Every structure is written in C-alpha cells, then in structure tokens.
C-alpha cells in the first residue's frame, strides 16, 4: 500500500490547484478593492481605509436585503424540499405513466433561469398575462403580482419553486431508489401503516440525502437574483431586493466597484458562517432523529 501514498497528491492536486488559482486572485482582488474608492469616474486602486465599511454599516437597504434573503431562501428551500419529497414518494413506485412524470418533473431545472424569468414575467403581467386573465374568468379578483409586496414575493417564490423543486425531486428520488427493502419488510411485519412507516423508516433512512440536498439548495438559493431582476427589479420600493441583486446594482449597474467589494466581502463571510452553522444543525438534528 505504500506505493499508493506516493500518488495521493497527484489525485487531489490538479483539481485543487486549478480551483485555487482561479479563485484566489478574485478573492484577494475583492479584499483589496473593498478598501479603495474605485468607481466609474475614478477606476483606480487607491486607498481610502475602512470608509466603505463604515458606509455599509448605515446602509439599510443592504441589511434589509439580508434579512429578507433569510426568509425568502429559507422558505423557498423548505417548500421545495417538502414538494420534492412528496413528488418523489408518489412516482417512486406503483404509479402509472411513471417515466413520463419523472421526465416532466425534471425538465424545469434544465432551463436557463434568466430566460425562464423573462417568460414568467409575461405570465405574471398584470394586464396582458394569463394568470390574472384566468383568475378573472373564474370570477376571482385580479392580483397585483408584481406591484405589491406580498403577491410579488409569492410570484418570486413561485418561479424559484418551479425551477428548483426538480433538483430536490431528483436527489430524493435517487435516494429512495437506493434504499434496501429489508427495513420496509420489517416494518410491514410489525404491522406499521404507511404514515408510521414513513416516519419510522423512510424519513430516517433518507436523512443523509436530505441534508445534502438542503445544503446545496440553500447555497444556490442564497445567490437568488436573476428572477428578482427580471420580475420586479427589486420593487415595489425595495421590498423584494435580495443581496445578490443589490450587489449587482451597486457593483455593475452603478459601477461602484470599491463599495460593492466591501458589501460582497461582508456578505461572503456572513453566508459562510450561516451556512456552516445551518449545516451542522441539520446534520445533528437529522442524525439524532435517525438515532
């Protein structure tokens, strides 16, 4: 086995170094630029101390967007998980048209988010789109999908759920298909009903897959911004702005590279800390439940 040791770095290093080289410069650049006043009319790496960070502390839009993200991303991912799990259970076995459903349920995650958001915008268009039209046809009042805070949030979540529930569905279905039959037979011999079997057998067995799926989705959902940009452009007011979108406004639309650098850095640290804590908690809770 000693022969193997010699090669161990040759497995890891190519990938690790590639990533490191591609990532380290941007990271250092962002740290440095966050201490500069780089903006559109002064595109230089000067040094202005911590002025950007002081400004950030008083930036209500930034902090409000972070709080909003916690609710928005957390809520969306949870709903995706529940729906994805339910769907996976339903087409797991004993279902007609199994393969058709499975393909159909996978398709949304394959589509380009910016492109689909443009389609969704036409769907939620309040006077020309089909949603309000259909509501009107069945005698319901029309809804201000993109111009009042509550419905706009619902519209955003709908788009995210449509796009990413398939991701949960895929991981959970693959997980279900890999379960061995014995625990289920044992439960059947004990005379457990479907509900009891689910909570005592299926759910605990699915814990590891669930943790992975939830964490990956949380990471991706924290970057939510395409759908916001296209659907509401953060409105009404700034009530649907996410950090991803706010960073985009400051950094690219207004070209305040320095200030956006300090925002991004703070955001990155916050996210890494939050996601680490969340994943530890998830692992612990689900593991204890598994016993």
């Amino acid at each position, binding site marked *: 086995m000693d022969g193997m040791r010699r090669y161990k770095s040759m497995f890891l290093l190519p990938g690790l170094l590639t990533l490191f080289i591609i990532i380290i410069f941007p990271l250092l650049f962002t740290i440095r630029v966050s201490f500069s006043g780089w903006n559109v009319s002064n595109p230089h790496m000067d040094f202005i101390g911590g002025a950007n960070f002081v400004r950030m502390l008083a930036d209500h839009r930034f902090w409000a967007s972070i709080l909003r993200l916690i609710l928005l991303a957390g809520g969306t991912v949870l709903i995706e998980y529940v729906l994805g799990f339910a769907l996976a259970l339903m087409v797991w076995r004993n279902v007609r048209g199994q393969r058709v459903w499975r393909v159909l349920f996978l398709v949304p995650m*394959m*589509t380009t988010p910016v492109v689909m958001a443009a389609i969704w915008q036409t769907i939620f268009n309040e006077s020309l789109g089909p949603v309000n039209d259909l509501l009107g046809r069945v005698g319901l009042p029309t809804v201000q999908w993109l111009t009042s805070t509550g419905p706009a949030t619902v519209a955003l979540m709908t788009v995210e759920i449509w796009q990413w529930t398939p991701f949960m569905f895929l991981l959970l279905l693959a997980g279900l298909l*890999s379960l061995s039959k014995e625990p289920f037979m044992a439960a059947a011999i004990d005379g457990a009903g479907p509900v009891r079997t689910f909570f005592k057998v299926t759910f605990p067995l699915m814990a*590891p897959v669930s943790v992975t799926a939830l964490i990956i989705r949380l990471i991706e959902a924290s970057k939510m911004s395409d759908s916001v940009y296209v659907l509401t452009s953060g409105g009404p007011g700034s009530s649907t702005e996410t950090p991803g979108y706010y960073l985009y406004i400051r950094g690219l639309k207004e070209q305040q590279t320095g200030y956006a650098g300090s925002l991004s850095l703070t955001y990155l640290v916050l996210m890494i800390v939050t996601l680490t804590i969340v994943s530890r908690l998830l692992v612990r809770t689900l593991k204890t439940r598994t016993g």
Partner: protein
Amino acid sequence: MSRAYLTFKYAFIAVWASFVAGPFVWALTTSFKDANGVQGGATYLPWVDYKPTTRGWQDIFGGEGGVNVIQPFLNSLQITVLASAISLVLGSLAAYGLSRYTYRIGRMKNADIVFFFVSQRIMPPIVLVIPFFFLLQFAGLLDSIPGLVIVTVALLLPIAVWVMVDFFNNIPREIDEMAMLDGCHPFAAFVRTILPNSLPGITVAAMFCAVFGWNDFFFAFRLTFTEVQTLPQAVVALNSSIPPWWTLSAASLFGISPLVLLAVWVERYLSRGNLAGAVR
C-alpha cells in the same frame, strides 16, 4: 393503498404536472403571436383567439431582427462540453483522492478540503466577474472560447467534486485494493476498475455540469464582446424595451430544447436504478 390516497396522489401529480408544463405551453402559444395577439390581453388558442404567424420563429434564425441563434448554439455547445469534460476529469481525480487518502494542508483535513471546493459556490458571481475580466485580459483570452471554458471550469469543478466524493465513498475499498494487489498502478486501478463502476455517479455529475454550464449567462455575458456569443446571451439580446414576446418565446424554447433531451437521458439511468448510489 386506500382509494382516497390514490385519488389524492393522481390529483397531486396532475396539478404539479400542469404547473410544470404551464409556462412551456404559454411560451409555445406566444411564440406564434404578433403584436396584435399580445396587446389586447391574454390569448391562448391559435385561430380561435388570435391569428397565428411564424414570424417569431423566422426571426430567431436570421430573420428581420438580425438575430441568429445558430452560431451561439454551437458556441454554447463547445463551451459546455469542454468545460464539463475538464471538470469531470479533474473533479473525479480529486474526489477519488479525497475518498481514499487522508490529506492535511495546514490545518485543513479532508472534510475541510471538500468544504473548500463546495464553498466556491457560495461566492456571489459579482465577486468573481471583475477579477476574471482582468485575469482573462492579462492572458489575452477575453472574448474567446478558451477563456470562457476556463471560467466555466471554476464554476463546475465544485459540483463535480461534491457529487463524486459521495459516490466514491460508497464504492467498497476492497475493489481498488484488489486491483492494486494484482500489480496495478494506482492510476491504472482507478481508470480500469473504479471508473467503470462509477458511470451512474459520472452521469449525475455530468448532468449538473451540463445544466450549470449551458445556463450560465452572467459570466459569458461580461467576458465577451463580439466574437463569442452564447445561447443565453442571444436570447437575452431580445429583451428590449419593447420586448417582442413572440421572438423571445421562440428563442427560449429553442434554447432549452437540448437540455430537455438530457432530462430524458437522465431519467433512463434513474429508472434502471443505476443512479441509486450517486447521491448518498
């Protein structure tokens, strides 16, 4: 299973299926409209509600708008395939290493290294894009396919590593040990015995790479000028202040079609049960 549950199950499936299909059906019907079919309010049925025209479809293949999706399609294809392939090779090597050996880099252990890979996905794209611009400028690779491939690899590698580590962890070590006792070089053991057993895992990883590579708009948009245009860029170029809904819909449907085929392919693996271990 009780009747009530069965009714509920098929009702649920039907509702979800219409929710999933809805936007596609809407885009399909919109792609055959013109301004008059859009401006008066929502219309659904061609010939009944509006007069269909194929103008939207003509326009995306070099019609009047001057937009042509063919070259962007080929560019996207090249970038996605190359970047996915590189990410899969580097990613599975790294993942195999991480599942079989114990590493220590400073205070970082295996789990931390895996987290380092995955944590790259937490980076908001905006942190990366401006530095990437300068990097590619320095290398003379702005507005080129190789440049975009490099950037895309940075986005895909974490996904490949994440999927493959879990997968290799589930392959019994005895398999590689046996191969090596037979006198195989570790790389040879990896290529001859581990990889063939890992096709399902590679399939999942390849699918994720293809999805995220194909759908990247943010980076491709900002790191190219005129030479290289990818498909999402060509579609977004139609989102003007007067968006031609019909052309936009036609272009969107065209843009997502290749990946729908991918969904069919993935489902085949899924149904055979081959993906089973891939996500544990």
